[in-house]
Each structure stands twice: as C-alpha cells, then as structure tokens.
C-alpha cells in the first residue's frame, strides 16, 4: 500500500481523535474535581447533537455557530443536575452514584427515543462533501474544522483552569478538598460549576460530532464507553491525558482498520486499554494514587 494512504488515514485519525479528546475532556474534568464518574456522558453529547440537528433543520444554523449557545445550555443543564441531583449523593457510597447516573442515562436515551424516534438524523452543511487536497494528502473539510474547533475549546478550558480565579479555586478543590473547605471556598458551588464546565465541553464535542456522524438515541452508550477508554488510557483526571488518549484512540482505530481489517477497529482500542492498564495503570499522563 502506498505511503500516502497511511498518511491520509493517520491524519484522518488525528482529526477525529481531537474531537474524541474534547468529549473525554469533559469526563476527565468532572471526575478530577467532583470524583463522580458521569455514566451519562455520551447521552449528554447525544442531547447536544439532537439540539444541533433540530436547530439546523428549523433555522438552518451551522452547528459550529450553535456551539456557544449549546455549550451554555449544557452548562446550565450540568450545573442544575449537579446541584439538584448529584450533590446529595456525593457522600454516599460509589455504587449509589453509579446507579443514579446510569438511571439518568437510561432516562435520557428513552426520552430521546420518545421525542425523535429511532431513525438516524444528520446535519448536511454546504461543505459536508468538501475536502482539501495538499499534494497527495486529502483532508476532509468537516473533520479539519471540527478538530480546530476542538483544539480551540480545549485551549480555552486549559486557560480557564490556569489563569481564572474560579479555575484556580476549582483546581484547589481537586488537589485538596479539605483545604479548600478550610479556606472558605464554596465547594458545592465549585462542584456544580465543574460539572457545568464538563457538560459544556461535551456540548461542544456534540456540535462537532454531529458533523461527522449521524445521531440516533442509542449512540450515547457507545460514546460513554469510548470516553471511559480514552480517559483511562490518558489518565483519570488529567486534562492533557484526555486529549492524548483521544488522539491515540483516533489514530489507532484508523490505522488498525487499514493494516488489519476494518472490523478490528474497536478491538484494537480495547487492546490499547488493556496494555495501558497492564503497563501503566494510572494512565499515560495520570498521577499515581
């Protein structure tokens, strides 16, 4: 097979991996601070995808233009969910939190099924079929735009946590919860803000993902699982790890399809997960417990 083919496929994997990374970033941020595993993560992304589809169908609005409003809506949704439903479970055993979030995921899937039915829906923007040709390299325009947008959102999130006072307070909560309480930080509010930010991330990822794949109500669990794999590979709670994990999964899926057989794509992703768990259980960029 010619080298251009490998290059094309690997670059496609990188672009898709960046969107995967952004999706997993939300999960990682939430777990890193609140210490709650969001089992409804993929379902929240599906929610954002449906919002983008409906707004595109009725108002012809490009999902990229819708990214900010959908991120805001998901932020509010996540904030409200953490305040009203998850906060009372914070001190309860982990299995209670697990069941709560699985229940929320099931309710979301079935609500989407009731409202939208099982058929796949998609957004067909004007540039859906365009691609950039650079010598022998052919890049899908939609993928390039989605990846750049994912990078921009991830950079904004990194900057927020590094430079904004609220971001620093959230990091303080994550590093030393008791210390944060002692210095008078409103930890529950910060938890809600974090859950909101993680949800906003997944909202942004949904706006980009809807340009790449068709959405059905049953899509959520697949992406929840994928986000878990990425976050575990990258390192639980590590933002950089989530992006790196996304890239690795994107590229390995793509190259496995080419070198082995397309049917083996998911198999290779899980093989990567097992390898990381065996050799570096804390994940590639994770800290040892």
């Amino acid at each position: 097979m010619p080298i251009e083919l490998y290059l094309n496929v690997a670059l496609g994997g990188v672009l898709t991996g960046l969107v995967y990374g952004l999706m997993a970033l939300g999960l990682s941020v939430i777990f890193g601070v609140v210490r709650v595993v969001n089992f409804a993560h993929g379902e929240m992304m599906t929610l954002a995808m449906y919002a983008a589809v409906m707004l595109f169908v009725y108002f012809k609005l490009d999902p990229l233009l819708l990214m900010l409003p959908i991120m805001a809506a998901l932020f509010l949704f996540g904030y409200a969910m953490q305040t009203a439903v998850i906060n009372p479970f914070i001190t309860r055993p982990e299995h209670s939190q697990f069941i709560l979030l699985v229940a929320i995921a099931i309710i979301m899937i079935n609500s989407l099924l009731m409202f939208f039915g099982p058929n796949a829906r998609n957004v067909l923007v004007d540039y859906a079929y365009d691609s950039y040709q650079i010598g022998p390299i052919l890049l899908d325009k939609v993928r390039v735009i989605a990846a750049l947008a994912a990078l921009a959102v991830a950079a904004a999130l990194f900057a927020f946590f590094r430079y904004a006072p609220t971001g620093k307070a959230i990091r303080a909560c994550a590093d030393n919860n008791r210390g944060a309480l002692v210095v008078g930080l409103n930890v529950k509010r910060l938890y809600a803000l974090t859950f909101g930010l993680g949800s906003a991330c997944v909202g942004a990822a949904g706006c980009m993902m809807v340009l790449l794949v068709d959405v059905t109500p049953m899509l959520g669990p697949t992406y929840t699982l994928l986000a878990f794999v990425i976050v575990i590979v990258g390192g639980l709670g590590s933002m950089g790890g989530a992006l790196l994990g996304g890239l690795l999964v994107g590229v390995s899926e793509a190259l496995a399809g080419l070198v082995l057989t397309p049917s083996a794509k998911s198999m290779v992703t899980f093989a990567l997960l097992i390898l990381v768990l065996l050799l570096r259980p804390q994940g590639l960029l994770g800290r040892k417990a």
Partner: protein
Amino acid sequence: MTSTSSKSARRLPGVTRRTFTGSAIAAAAVAGVAPFNIVRGQAAALKVGVILPKSGPQAFFGQSCQRGIDIAPALLAEMGYNVKLDVTSVDFETNVDLARSRAEKLVNDGAHVLIGPFDSGAAGAIAQVAEQKGVPFMINIAAAPQITEQGYKYVFRNFPTAPMLIGNGLSLMKEFFKATGATPKTAVFMHVNDTFGQASARGVEALFPRLDMPFKILETISYDPAARDLSVEVAKAKASGAEMVMLVSRLNDSILLVREMVKQRFEPMGIISPGSPGMYEEQFFTTLGKFSEYCVTNVPWYNPKSEIAQKVAGAFRKQFPNDRLIGHIFNVGFSFESMMIVADAYQRAKSTNGQALAEALRATKIDKRVMIGGAIQFNEKGQATTIASAALQNRNLEPKVVLPAEAQELKPVFPVPGWNNRG
C-alpha cells in the same frame, strides 16, 4: 421477620399459614388460566406475533416492514380472506438476544404464528424458539441459508437465500454490462460483517468462479454495519485501484460509504449490489440527494403490473399518505405477502393448532402475488424457490427497473457520471 399477609392469615380462625398459601396459589392459578380459556372459547382470531427491529441500526427496515403488516388485515378481508387476524407487534431493537426473548414472550402470551424479522441473525434465534414451541414461523425477509437447512418443521421463508440472491444478482450483473456495453475489469467487494453479510460473502466466493464473471475481485473489505465512520474502509477501497465497487450493505452504512466516496473523490465506474438492502431505501435518497443517483441494486422487487401489488400500493397510500411507496415497497411487499400466506394457511387449516397450521403452510400455493416471481410455494425445507430479482438503478431519486428487459422502466447507465456531474 413476619410478613403482613402471614400475620392476617394467623388471625383468621381455622386458617393455617399452609392452607392460606395453598389457597392463594390456587386462586392465582385459576386467575392465570381463566383468560386463556376465554380466548380458546372464542377461537375465531389467529394470534399473529410480529417481531421486527423497530429501533437500533435497522429501525428503518423494521418500521417499513410494519407498514406492510398494518395494511394487511383490512386488505386481506377486502380480497376475500374470511379470517380474523389478531396482530401483536414487538420490537427486538436490532438485538438478536432480544429477538429470542421477544419470540418466547409472544408464544407464552398465546401467539399461534410468528412473522418477521428482517434480519438473518434474529431469524435464526426465533426459528429455534418456534421449533421448540411448535409454533409456525413465517420469515418475511432474511437470507442466511442455514435457517432453512436445519430440518426445521415449523419454519417457512418467503424470501431467497443468500446464494439464491447472490446467484440472481451476479447473473443480472453480467446482463447489465452487456446491455450497457461497458464491463469493468476489476472490483473491490465491500460487505457488512453481520450474519447476512457473511452469508452473502460466502455466496459470492462460491458462485463467482462458477458464473464466470467478467471482472476480478482485487480486494474484499468487511466492516461493522453499525460503524460510525467508514473513511478507512473507503480509503482502502480507493487504494485498491478497482474500477467498480460491489457492495453488500445495510442502510446507514451504505449512506456513510457513499458520503465518504464523495469526500475522498473516489469515482469508480459504478456501485453495484448483487443483492442487499440500503441503496433503494427512502432514507438513502433523502439523505444523499443527487449522490444517491445511479447506484444499482439487484434484488427481488414488486411487480407493478400485478393486481395485488396495485391493491397493496393503494392501501399503503391511503394509510400512509406522507410516505413514498417506492421507498418502502420491498419491505412492505414481502411483509404483506407473509401475512397473506399465513391468512391463506389459517383459512385452509381451520385451526390455530401449530401442527395443522404448519401442514397448511407447507401445502401453500398462491398464484397471485405482490413480488416478481412464480406462485408462492415452499419446498420440503420450508424455502420458497420462485422469487426472481430485478436490477434497479437509482434515477431521479427513485429506484427504477432497468433489467430484465420485459419489466424495464429506464435504460441502464454505466459507467455512471462523476459525483460533480449529477443533477
């Protein structure tokens, strides 16, 4: 810990816990059995359990088949079938394990006959249940050959097996090239890796040399029908340098494939399916628009000149005025025929007994039908053998018959125009 019921049982004079429990079980048994006695007493309606994938990746097909089931009772009565059909439809969510449990539940709830399921994997699972319970199973659409090769006595299929489908499809392909005067030298064979796709792939492998096909298969690429992204598969197909794409697909994956081919500027002489769903379905046209044009599928198809097909078309338009018949006719046609076969057998058997119904089904001979082919009959394995295929080419956002010549609506076009030179 003492339960409330046992406390109250203890308070009743002369009623021991044992007699109380025994009475409760007896009462429950009577309550449970009574409805069945009432139903048996009426004995007029044939309980038909329909199992279809109405959600999940094959949701469109399941819902499309359901339309054929929905129009059947009234239309069959109008056609003179003097039987009452009590239809219960369930969704197996495109999940084979659920298909099995849904079939068991339908039978436990009193279904006399099962119909479905538009999926070979699910058909295999339901067939086992039907055989164990002695309830006839009428397959509307499912092509894996092994389903009717197990020696089952209660399983009947009014649909070609994958080798029959592929054999007809490959033969039509040769005629297609002859009619257009253009023959590709090479092809890449892409197929889904579910039960149907693998049965079709085995059919291609076995029949290809035997039918002396005029082109060579350079590469075979199998993929997951629920795949979210087929960019790698298309890149691989393009890199093979093949002149034609031979495709065995489902619906969502066929849309993804064409979309990727456009993006990757892969322009083969054409995309031809030797016999699979996807490219003639309504959603294929609505999603892809002009890029859905010129794709070719060789499949069993409805006979627009048949009297029953016209009645089915009329009933469909009346009941589903917002749907385009042409996007559903394949699923509707076979599903309606299944209901017709079952009604016909019940009318002759005059019984809801599984064995009597199975014997009546085995003796089926229905001359007038919806689909192209000879009279509906089953061989000793329960397999229909007279269903023919037609070559359909997507033209003006509709599948049109281009072969065989006697049913031709438009002349075939091959090689097809480039992606940017369409409508």
